[in-house]
């Protein structure tokens, strides 16, 4: 077996084990050092993935697709995970044991990569389960804090149901098509009701990881209750994997009856529900959680028109990158402010902490899609792809939702910039989170302006099988 094909993934496992071993010998106040092996592993994974950039083949007996989608997934997930982990040492400084946090996060990232790379239904199930099981632990890490435990519990309950549906769906589809191999499934006849039911169940199972209707309810709770580094991770990384896995699924059955309309309907429901629920939130983390739900809806737009427009895949990739960057930046700001989340705490932030206020404003404007930020390029691609693919009404729905979303982002931006500061300036976490926020902001602006080469490479991406 060509073991080197999975080099980046093996690097993640090695890093996770190294972090775990290190955690066993380090005293409590030095547990943050476990960040080092984790970051090294992520860097190795990134470079290894880049070395395989030109590979287009199925590997490991056809269960793993080594193609442009996997490359992009590896890149985005590794970068996102690194940014989230940088927040962790200071955040968990008072935590009794958090060395394992790095291990869990790396395993969860591995699950997300495996979701995006899966070229076999069984492999997909394995990936989703790995990503989920680790996710529950990450969400409930603050065992003594009710909100965190609630987040973990809710994530677990919804996840258990969704994963069960996913497995049933996979079984139905396998039973009807006679194989779980994507290469063999490509273009297979899935017109029988059972197979279609199976497809729909798989979609709903992946919708859970994506944070889309009907599996979205955990997102706001996790955003609010999970430790901020974990919240940043869980609202972003599994979503990348799930969105790409869904794309592969639609790519596999481009003509399956009702599949596209189903995803289009989920897309509209998700963006609308997420935005309406976010409108009156008074907790900024919860607001970001609901906004993450709505962003999943936008991502589904590109999945809907998979293969109908040449821009569908590039726009999905670039949109996911934009979303990940903006969301992680927003959470980095919140971590930097030591997790302050009441809306009132943000009044006058532009004067008390101008850098952090600017970072949060840029992140939110990128989520709205204001040019020339990267979020605009992502959304522009989505609009082009959906209109080109014949789903102009979906683009119109997204436009209406974007206007609604500006309202709640402005509810945070306005007091930050317009109101006078109340009380003393908020204390901050440490330079790492600040640096992550500043780095993210620079990337939101910079990558938006120099989108060209990235889009070129995204357009050249080939999907297997």
């Amino acid at each position: 077996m060509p073991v080197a094909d999975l080099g980046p993934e093996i690097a993640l496992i090695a890093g996770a084990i190294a972090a775990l071993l290190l955690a066993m010998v380090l005293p409590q106040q030095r547990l943050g050092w476990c960040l080092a092996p984790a970051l090294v592993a992520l860097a190795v994974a990134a470079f290894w993935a880049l070395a395989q950039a030109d590979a287009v083949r199925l590997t490991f007996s056809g269960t793993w697709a080594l193609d442009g989608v996997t490359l992009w997934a590896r890149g985005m997930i590794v970068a996102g995970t690194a940014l989230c982990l940088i927040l962790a040492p200071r955040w968990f400084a008072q935590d009794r044991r958090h060395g394992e946090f790095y291990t869990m996060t790396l395993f969860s990232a591995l699950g997300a990569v495996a979701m995006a790379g899966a070229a076999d239904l069984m492999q997909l199930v394995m990936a989703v389960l790995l990503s989920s099981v680790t996710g529950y632990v990450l969400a409930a890490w603050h065992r003594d804090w009710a909100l965190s435990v609630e987040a973990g519990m809710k994530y677990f309950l919804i996840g258990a149901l969704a994963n069960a549906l996913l497995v049933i769906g996979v079984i139905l589809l396998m039973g009807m098509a006679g194989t779980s191999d994507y290469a063999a499934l490509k273009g297979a006849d899935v017109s029988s009701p059972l197979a279609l039911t199976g497809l729909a169940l798989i979609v709903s199972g992946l919708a859970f990881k994506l944070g889309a209707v009907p599996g979205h309810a955990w997102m706001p709770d996790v955003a609010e209750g999970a430790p901020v580094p974990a919240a940043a991770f869980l609202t972003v990384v599994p979503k990348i994997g799930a969105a790409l896995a869904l794309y592969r699924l639609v790519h596999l059955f481009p003509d399956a009856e009702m599949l596209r309309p189903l995803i289009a309907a989920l897309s509209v429901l998700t963006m609308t529900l997420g935005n309406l629920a976010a409108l009156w939130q008074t907790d900024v983390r919860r607001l970001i959680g609901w906004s993450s739900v709505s962003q999943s809806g936008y991502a589904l737009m590109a999945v809907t028109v998979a293969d109908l427009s040449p821009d569908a895949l590039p726009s999905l990739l670039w949109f996911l990158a934009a979303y990940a960057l903006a969301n992680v930046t927003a959470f980095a700001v919140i971590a930097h402010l030591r997790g302050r989340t009441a809306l009132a705490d943000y009044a006058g932030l532009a004067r008390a902490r101008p850098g952090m206020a600017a970072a949060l404003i840029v992140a939110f404007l990128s989520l709205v899609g204001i040019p020339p930020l990267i979020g605009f390029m992502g959304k522009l691609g989505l609009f082009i792809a959906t209109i080109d693919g014949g789903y102009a009404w979906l683009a119109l729905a997204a436009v209406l939702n974007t206007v609604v979303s500006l309202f709640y982002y402005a509810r945070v931006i306005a007091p930050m910039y317009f109101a006078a500061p109340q009380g003393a300036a908020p204390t901050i976490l440490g330079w790492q989170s600040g640096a992550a926020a500043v780095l993210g902001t620079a990337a939101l602006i910079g990558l938006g302006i120099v989108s060209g080469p990235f889009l070129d490479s995204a357009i050249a991406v080939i999907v297997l099988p």
Partner: protein
Amino acid sequence: MLTFAILLPFAAAALLAFAPVSAGASRAIAIATAGLSLLVLVVVWAGFTPGAGFQAVQEAPWIPALGVAWRVGVDGISLPLALMSGLLFVASIAWPMERDVNARQYYAWFLFLEGASLGLFLTLDLLLFYVFFDLSLVGMYFLIGRWGHGNAQRAALKFFLYTLAGSLLILLAIIALVLMTDPLTFDMRDLIAAQPVAGMDLRAGLILLGFVIGFAIKTPLFPVHTWLPPAHVDAPGPASAILAGVLLKMGTYGLVRIAMQMMRETFAAWALAIGILALISIIWGSIVAFAQENFKRRIAYTSVNHMGYAVLGIAVAGSAVTGHEAARDLALTGAMVEMVAHGLITGALFLIAGAFWARTQEYELGHYGGLASGAPRMMAAMGLASFASLGLPGLAGFVAEVQIFIGAFAIWPWLAALALLGLIVTAALFLGMLQRIFFGDRPPALDGFTDLTRTEIGILAALLVLVVLIGVWPAWLLDMIGAGSALAFGGG
């Protein structure tokens, strides 16, 4: 050259945002930057040949995959608007701040807004057009929300939401239009030449609808004008001047450049409907303005009325009624002059309104009276601007309106006749406003009212001299516009 004019304000804005310079220094930097940008534009104007298509063109690749590039250039339609914007920005930036807080950021946002506004008029790429369109919203949102008064945050949010809705509709329409081309291109010149939706029916109509709604929100036309009064009333005076003088023009400029030039046939089919929309705005704007007791709100509503004239001119020009080329030509020239004139006149009026607020924190007409003796310079400036606004011959507004009406009479006489009613109401409302502010008994609260300072009068003089100049000797402006070439270029 043009690239420099756009990027310079952005660069200066970034400098002010990060460098810890004093309030005085930031003011000086801002004025110098705006002046330099204007100077660059004037240099371009000096080398401009009227009627020779797009000039001073510069291109640089940006996103080749989508056919997007940094393209700038000017023709007779964009150059006057860019020049007017450049001048109005110098005036507004030089105008004393109303609420003297956080000067560095105030000037940074103003320069940011200037870069976005000039970029919008100068770009030849549809996507860049949209980018600058949105950036202008962001700049104005922060200016109104932070430095406005009254219920400024609410007004700023309403402005942002309304115009973002409009701009996103425009984005969808742009995408739908561009997707008709193969290979994809956002180049305005190619799109004008290609007429991508010619001969299509429903789809072309929907695309036009997207543009018209989007630009109507920005212009604004009835019934989507409701964001305008609060935004104007609560914005600081210089921001109001920019909002009325520059940002509203983006709507009409978009109508000419995109809807009329790139979708000639479709626009012609719907020109009458757009004309009727303009008529409603003209009448509605003037009547509602007449009823306002808050004089800044009154001026704001006259913008609805005046922009209605401009849209009427555009509708006439795009109507493609054969045999009336001269009339359509005249109407387009009129619409362009109206845009320039309205920018200068209403810009001046809002700056004056800002001067009133700085002195009394009051916009209600009932609060004023008898200021003629105490503030003669104020009266002269406001009187001149008001007369220009109501269309007195010899001033800029008249030149514009007379051409629009002549053009409209040739094509749709009944519509033009009805629109004339707007002129009468406008005259009444401006005269009434002047009378109530400057004549009658002076309330004791106004005893210490100071006249315009030397800075203020200097800035207003620069704007109003141009208003008079356009009124008595409009040839240079009409030459620059050269509507015939714009029509031949885009409307045949």
